[in-house]
């Protein structure tokens, strides 16, 4: 049975900008996805709890504050703890190239840097959701 991909868009960290996240959310809706937006300043715990309750296929993390090296791996660690590693995690925001390998090692499947189009991100998610 065909069903929409469910995505949770979350902004961990303290920065107060969510324009990019909202643009992505709309593009995802237009691509036929169900998008749950949890808003600004989310802790990794809140993000993972919401993802489990909402039974999403994927989590999109966006971070502009530079705290991604701590926050993103914390999300994947908590997902492991909840036995929920079948949820695909992708990240975006202002993330230096040199940080990417470590983030991927920590279980973030893909990082979209500022130049990436929403279409690329959506395509990636469609091809990589695990169920």
């Amino acid at each position, binding site marked *: *049975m065909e*069903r*929409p991909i*469910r995505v949770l868009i979350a902004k961990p960290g303290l920065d107060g900008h969510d324009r990019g996240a909202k643009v992505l*959310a*709309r593009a*995802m*809706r*237009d*691509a*036929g*996805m*169900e*998008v*749950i*937006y*949890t*808003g600004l300043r*989310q*802790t990794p*715990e*809140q*993000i993972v*709890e*919401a993802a*489990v*309750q*909402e*039974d999403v296929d994927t989590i999109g993390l966006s971070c502009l504050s530079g705290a991604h090296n701590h926050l993103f791996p914390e999300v994947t660690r908590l997902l492991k703890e*909840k*036995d*929920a590693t079948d949820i695909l995690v992708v990240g975006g925001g202002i993330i230096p190239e040199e940080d990417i390998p470590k983030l991927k090692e920590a279980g973030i499947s893909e990082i979209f840097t500022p130049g990436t189009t929403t279409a690329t991100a959506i395509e990636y998610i469609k091809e990589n959701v695990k169920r």
Partner: protein
Amino acid sequence: MTTHAKNDSNIWAERVLAGDRRALARVISLLENQEPEGFHTLKTLYPKTGQAHIIGLTGPPGGGKSSLVDRMIQEIRSRGHEVAVVAVDPTSPFTGGAILGDRIRMQRWASDTGVYIRSMGTRGSLGGLARAVYATVQLLDAASFPYILVETVGVGQSEVDIVQVADTVVVVSVPGLGDDVQVSKAGIMEIGDVFAVNKADLPGSQRVVVELQSMLDLGSHDVWQPPVVTTVATTGKGVSELITAIQEHLVVLQEANLLTKQRLAREKEALLQRLTERIRCDITKQWSNKQGNQAWENLAAKKTDPYTLEEQLYLSWKGVTTVDNQD
């Protein structure tokens, strides 16, 4: 397949009863996607249902429903109870996608284990809201949440659908929309058990209260007189009174021996709706072949008329189900 699904669903049922939130969330997805496994699980869990107070909230877009739900969670938690929320937002009929934005107002409860929040799109199918929401609410009931809050936006069919799900319907109004829009809107006065005038911090709220009250005075209410409560969801003002009014409604229903009756009527209606949906599917499938195409062509050419066609379709559907029953 059925035995396999059955065994699996017993495991699902056990996990749900044990309070496993991931299993609960997964079974809700199965129900939403109309997977047989989901309904098998509900079959197992059905005897456990009937304990929860199911509360529906409906009202105009942006009226503060989600903010009110957030405050209601707070009030219910402060009274020491667990609570589940189903927040429904419209699915885009063009793309099948949706932005489910209600959770953002309640997200502070994400890590409270006594609160479960689930966002849902109306999705396309006939009676879609009623069906998926109904099943989800039953599951949450079986999972022993004593309070289940269902938020739907009051446009189109959904506010009427909420009656099929909830024991108590809260109709949310706000000042500043003009009286025609909300109060006299067909059906709204009839479905409300409790009326909340939210954004009572804004000018004009007292006028809305008076209007609602005078509309209610026109109706005949023998068992329960729907109260009008003012709330400010942003501060929590009036929310304790709102919860108390909602609880009183349930008590009155119980004392008048109406609760069981109403629930049975809802169950029956939901069942009939599911049957209708299945039959519609059957007939559509059965007639999307050569014979069907011929019939539509004949109709277009006025070689037949829709009433004769209806009769034919009906009889042929009956014929097929008889054959089905025999094997």
